[in-house]
C-alpha cells in the first residue's frame, strides 16, 4: 500500500515537472513562463520528495528529504520575484492575449 502510494506520488511529481516544461515552452512571455516554472516544478519536487520520504527507512531520513522542499521553495520564490521584478524594471511589457480561434 505504502509502496503504491509512493510510486503514485513519484509519477504525479514527474507529471508536474513535465507540465512545467511544457508551460515554459508554450507560454507566450517571461511572466507567464515564470508562473509555469515556479508553481508546477515546485509541486513536482514536493510530490517526488513526499514519495521518496514515504518509503525511507528511518524517520530522520524521511524528514531530511522533506527538509529539502522549503529550501527549494524559498529559492525559487526569491528567484522568480527577482526575475519578474527585473523584467518589469527593464520595461518588458506582459503579453496581453489574443483571440482564441
Amino acid at each position: 500500500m505504502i509502496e503504491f502510494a509512493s510510486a503514485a506520488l513519484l509519477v504525479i511529481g514527474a507529471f508536474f515537472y513535465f507540465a512545467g516544461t511544457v508551460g515554459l515552452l508554450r507560454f507566450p512571455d517571461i511572466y507567464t513562463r515564470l508562473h509555469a516554472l515556479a508553481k508546477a516544478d515546485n509541486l513536482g519536487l514536493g510530490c517526488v520528495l513526499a514519495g521518496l520520504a514515504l518509503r525511507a527507512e528511518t524517520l530522520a531520513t524521511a524528514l531530511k528529504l522533506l527538509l529539502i522542499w522549503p529550501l527549494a521553495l524559498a529559492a525559487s520564490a526569491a528567484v522568480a520575484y527577482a526575475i519578474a521584478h527585473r523584467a518589469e524594471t527593464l520595461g518588458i511589457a506582459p503579453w496581453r492575449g489574443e483571440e482564441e480561434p
Partner: protein
Amino acid sequence: MTGLEWPGLELSLALFLLANLVAALMAAERGPTAADRMLTALLFGSTGVGVLVLLAVAMRLPSLVDVALTLALLAAIAGIAFARRAWRGTSDD
C-alpha cells in the same frame, strides 16, 4: 522474463526529468531575451534537486541526498542574494 531488467521507477523518472531539463535548456538557449535565459536559474533549483534525490534512491547512494540538500541550500542563498540585488537595482541600471 528475458535477461533485461526493468530499470526501476526512480531511475526512469530521473532520466525523464533530465530530458525535461535538456529540453528546457535548449529552449532557453535560443530564448528571445536575457530574462528568458535567467529562467535556467529556476530550473536548476527544482529539476536538479529532483534528479538528485531520485538518483540517490535508484543508485543506493544516500549521500546524494546530502548533495541535493546542499544544492537546495545554495540555491536558496543565491536566490535571496539575487533578489536583494534586483531589489536595490530598481533605480540604478
